[in-house]
């Protein structure tokens, strides 16, 4: 594995943007500024960024209800995202999707998805699409430990293996599906092992370590693009906030949360690149400031944007009807 300076800076910038974005939403939700359900990705940044670092605009991802991180990592504009989450006309989905359905098909982001297990079949289709065209496009399919138990996920793992589709399945195992821990919900004690069961390599990756994710995803996408078929990466991680904003988080201990915050992916990145003499602290500090400014700007953009005209409700159901 090799990482040039530009890639390292890109990785840190995207992770920091996601963290700032989510922390700001956490505050703004508590202040009553955000309608609806919001599921925050803070804590899991290393996964989205370590995976999307291998993708171009013409590659695809499918996402989950916890999709902001995937969107930012794939290059969706944060102003449009923030406006969307505020329900504004300038939102990337004109205020019709909200947090759970942010998408940017032109950048290969096939949508956050409110249905647990909704994405994997779509990912098979995106993979199939590139395959039939004979391109080297690849697809990343994000799902969670909850999604791992849906039949659609099992079916998609099988179909992708049968057709050797260029899809990388990334299970973000953050240990809780809503309130339900994986101790309770995972019958066989392995999610990675399900890959093997369906005929593809399944491995466990430290989802708090962006370098571990980057390296594993790099090999998985190489396999995908070379026609060697799909891979399942079980990235073990943790969400810092509740299932959704407003969740009192009565189902896990504060000690456990503190432990994961000690293994924060941004802090881990800093210590690795500084110990390894790969980047300077000042460069990282500058990115921190830049990310803070970008989020302040995104909020200002969202707040100054108009609400949609109510009649806009009627548009965009069909291309033509």
């Amino acid at each position, binding site marked *: 594995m090799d990482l040039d300076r530009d890639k390292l800076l890109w990785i840190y910038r995207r992770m920091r943007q996601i963290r700032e974005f989510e922390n700001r939403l956490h505050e703004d939700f508590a202040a009553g500024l955000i309608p609806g359900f919001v599921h925050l990705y803070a804590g899991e940044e290393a996964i989205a960024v370590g995976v999307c670092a291998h993708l171009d605009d013409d590659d695809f991802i499918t996402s989950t209800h916890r999709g902001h991180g995937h969107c930012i990592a794939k290059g969706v504009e944060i102003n449009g995202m923030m406006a969307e989450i505020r329900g504004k006309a300038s939102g990337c989905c004109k205020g*019709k999707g909200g947090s759970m359905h942010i*998408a940017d*098909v*032109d950048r290969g982001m096939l949508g956050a998805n*409110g249905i647990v297990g909704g994405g*994997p079949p*779509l990912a098979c289709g995106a993979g199939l699409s590139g395959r039939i065209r004979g391109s080297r496009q690849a697809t990343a399919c994000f799902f969670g430990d909850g999604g791992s138990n849906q039949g659609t996920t099992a079916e998609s793992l099988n*179909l992708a293996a049968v057709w050797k589709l260029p899809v990388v399945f990334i299970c973000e195992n953050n240990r809780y599906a809503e309130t339900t821990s994986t101790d309770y919900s995972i019958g066989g004690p392995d999610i990675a092992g399900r890959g093997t069961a369906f005929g593809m390599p399944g491995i466990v990756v430290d989802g708090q370590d962006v370098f571990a994710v980057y390296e594993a995803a790099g090999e998985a996408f190489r396999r995908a693009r070379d026609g060697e078929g799909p891979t399942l990466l079980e990235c073990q991680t943790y969400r810092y906030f509740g299932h959704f904003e407003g969740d009192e988080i009565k189902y896990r201990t504060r000690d456990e949360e503190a432990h994961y915050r000690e293994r924060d992916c941004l802090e881990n990145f800093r210590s690795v690149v500084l110990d390894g003499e790969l980047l300077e602290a000042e460069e990282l500090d500058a990115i921190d400031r830049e990310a803070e400014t970008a989020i302040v700007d995104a909020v200002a953009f969202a707040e100054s944007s108009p609400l949609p005209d109510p009649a806009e409700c009627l548009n965009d159901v069909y291309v033509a*009807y």
Partner: protein
Amino acid sequence: MAERELTYRGAINEALRLEMRRDESVFIMGEDIAGAPGRDDPEMVDAWGGVLKVTEGLINEFGPERVRDTPITESAFIGAGVGAAATGMRPVVELMFIGFMGVTLDQIINQAAKMRYMFGGKAKIPLVIRTTIGAGFRAAAQHSDATYSTFVHFPGLKVVAPATPYDAKGLLISAIRDDDPVIFCENKVLYDTTGPVPEEDYTVPLGPAGHPRDGADVTIVAISRMVSISLEAADRLAADGIEADVVDLRCLSPWDEDAIIGSIEKTGRLVVVDEDNPRCSMASDVAALAASRALGYLDAPVQMITAPHTPVPFSPPLEDYYVPKADAIVEAVRAIT
């Protein structure tokens, strides 16, 4: 246009063939649409050509990449159709029987139907799901439904149910070229019926109703196989001097409200004939349309001739009882004229 008789099955096969020739982004997939996938033995290729042989021969022209046999995994391959459609292809996916929609409904109603809207109009899903409907094969409750109304309920989907070989070809070509997801319902009892079908490609637009019979005394709105049964009833009524105006509701969503209203304006009487179960159905929807937009023209209560509110039974006399018949239509018309 060169025209010859073709079966409903052959018309659909021809539409697929022409569209796959015309557009490389069109591909088809489904369970056993060729058969014996993965076998090298040339004798085994196209072992089935589709469970009812609708896709027979296509694999020989287009190969297994574009005529793609799937495992029995409806959620995954219907969803893969949605994903492929969202990323630049025009998949035509076969759901063997409409009863199997229960296995895969999420991918149709939450993904295919809603993506464009949820994404603010920035996605298009040019997907066709071909499926079979209809009782008459002694195939019992899970392989015989005509539950297209389920899909009509969901905004974002288009639903089509051709009654003739001509419409089957023209509507399928339109459906494939359409940029929205279309559920294309083929009545399996009609597969062997024949009719004139031009050899060239042509389209029948999604929306307008067909108008196979003109009459001034009663409007009969019929769907799919019920069109021919309604025409049979109309012939018998004509012998008694009652002229039925038969509307073929070949497009269920979008649908042709004006054709229905216009006919009611002309006749003052409405009978709806639908092979689906009666509650929350196309029949009740047409009746509601008449009540809300044409009540002033109606001289008599709307009559709904539908299957009973039961699953489709197996035993021949039970199944025969289930399917609406010309007798019932004639009786209903006589009751209001």
